[in-house]
């Protein structure tokens, strides 16, 4: 088996798990696909490091990258695409059927319901900041303007709200990779 076969085999084994892991984290199938593509593009660029590892170590390595990429996405509200761009990888569009399938396989409906409950437990300030930023996808400067706070404060409220939700949901829904 040559390197390319080995890499493709890794994707065959772990691609779905990585995608579902990221879908549960982001609850956005399109974002999860973009992050999955970047995760494997990083893996391809780092094949020299990854190749000698055993299957479990490779898996751990992959999910580490996936978590970091998701973390950056959560902080910056944009998907990092450096490795994808450098490798010239065309990320395919997410088909409508895929959206439903990923939603179902990842239990995103149930997760969203639980999220609704947890949202109700947040402070009014955090909840409104999340609604404006996450639901209505308004830019931070507009969130800040609507809330009557500085942009820095708006970002902090969104960030704290997201972290609070993650902390509440993760133990119950097993958002780790083993749940995929």
């Amino acid at each position, binding site marked *: 088996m*040559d*390197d*390319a076969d080995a*890499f*493709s085999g890794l994707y065959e084994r772990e*691609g*779905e798990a990585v*995608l579902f*892991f990221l879908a549960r984290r982001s609850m956005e199938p399109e974002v999860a*696909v973009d992050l*999955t*593509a970047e995760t*494997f*593009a990083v893996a*391809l*660029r*780092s*094949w*020299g490091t990854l*190749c000698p590892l055993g299957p*479990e*170590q490779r*898996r*751990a*390595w992959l*999910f580490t990258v*996936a978590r*970091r990429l998701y*973390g950056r996405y959560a*902080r*910056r509200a944009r998907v990092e*695409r*450096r490795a*994808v*761009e*450098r*490798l*010239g*990888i*065309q*990320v*395919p569009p997410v*088909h409508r*059927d*895929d959206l439903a399938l*990923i939603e179902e396989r990842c239990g995103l409906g149930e997760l969203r319901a639980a999220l609704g409950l947890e949202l109700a437990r947040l402070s009014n300030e955090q909840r409104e900041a999340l609604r404006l930023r996450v639901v209505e996808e308004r830019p931070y400067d507009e969130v800040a303007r609507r809330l009557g706070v500085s*942009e*820095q404060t708006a*970002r*902090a409220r969104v*960030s*704290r709200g997201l*972290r609070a939700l993650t*902390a*509440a949901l*993760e*133990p119950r829904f097993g*958002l*780790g990779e*083993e749940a995929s």
Partner: protein
Amino acid sequence: MSQRPRVLVELGVELDRAAREVLVDVSKSGRRTIAGRLRWRWRAVPVLALLVLGGTAVAFASGLFSFGAPVPPTPIFSSADVGLGAVIPGSVKLLPIATPDPKGGPPWGLRVLTTTRGAGCVQVGRLVDSRLVALGQDDAFANDGRAHELPVSAAVTSFGCTPLDSNGRFFNSITMLGQTASAAWWFRSTTCVPTGTPQSTSRAHPACPLADERDVYYGLLGPDAKSITYTLAGQTRTQATTRPDGAYLIVADASAHQRIPGAGGGTADDVPVFSPITSIQYTDGATCHLLTAHKWIAGFHACSPPLKEPIGYAPAIAPTPAQVTAPITARVTYTHVIRFPARVIHTGTRVIHIRAQSISIPARHEITVSFKSRIAIRTLRAQYQLEWHNPREPARVDSYTSIGDSNGFVTRAEADLGEAGAGADIAAGQTLTANIGLLGPPLTHGMVHGTITLYYSTGPSVDGELPTKKIPVGSFTATIP
């Protein structure tokens, strides 16, 4: 068997194609080569104007361009010990290079700087009155026709900064395709979308007029790079680099439908890629023939014959195991409170301060791992990582936890520092603490094993397949009742 999303299959095909282009088969080459930093897809670029390249700076009469308000600074260099660090006073240098724009107007120039955390950054812009500026054109600055000075923090791309080598130099070659001639790329002041920018799916902006777009190739090739040879519009030219950094800057008209495959128009590497540069000549007579005819390019591997590292690059020196080995303590507790330390997040353009907070969760076991860093870390290159696994289980996603990663969930430094670690300096003797188990997979009954390792990049950049030394700090065990 569960149905697989079609997008996964299609992405797999694309990844497989990329893998076959960038991974050189061991059986064919006799050695493993990672070729995958970039692949070359040269498409003939019809260039509308020949470039006149020279080392003589063009003093642009200030009377032709009045100055508008400077571009607002960003806090990217606001903290000396976090992120990229702060700009070292006196390190900002406008290079003696001025490249004409194909359509006229102020020439293009380069500026370099170094930071307190060992980064070197190169910036590009238009030159007016020996100042690096963006122009009020191409929809930027309401087309006010003025020059807007670029503060050092406002002209930094994600590609523009790399670690300094042992001699305090940095190597970085950047390609920007289809960007507006205003040079106002970095702060999204334009309302049109350059062709080299990924088209936003949520906002419909018109494409910028092609006549307003440029392809800009620039960078630093090191002190030993004497000249470059490039081919544009069928004409081959050799141009001296600017000493002592080996700097070059080429500006050409953009052409329609010209994209770096996959997305946007920007990329960077240790030697020029996705550029018309075909070779680099060095002072010792060596020549790097860039493998532009090949379908892949891999940083300094793109040179033929392949290079271990860019010529003139002095690898960073990593600490030895004896210097970093330290006792590690692991303490098991049972808690239902997650405490998030106060911290500062650097997004590249903003600094966000987050206060400490506590969150209640269902009670779980937690391991608090701590050790004293024996060495000071004041560089982008180094990062402590923690690996652990539950009893009878292999390593898993949570087994790799960057101590001090700006993700911040499970990492914190004591001494009320708020933040420490990979994204920030660590003092010699500073206690670093990481917590395992409250977030992510729960700890299970039995003996948990873990290690801490210092990852230290010695290559020209901190990512990718470039050399990284893994220096063991120590190991720990903890028993979960």
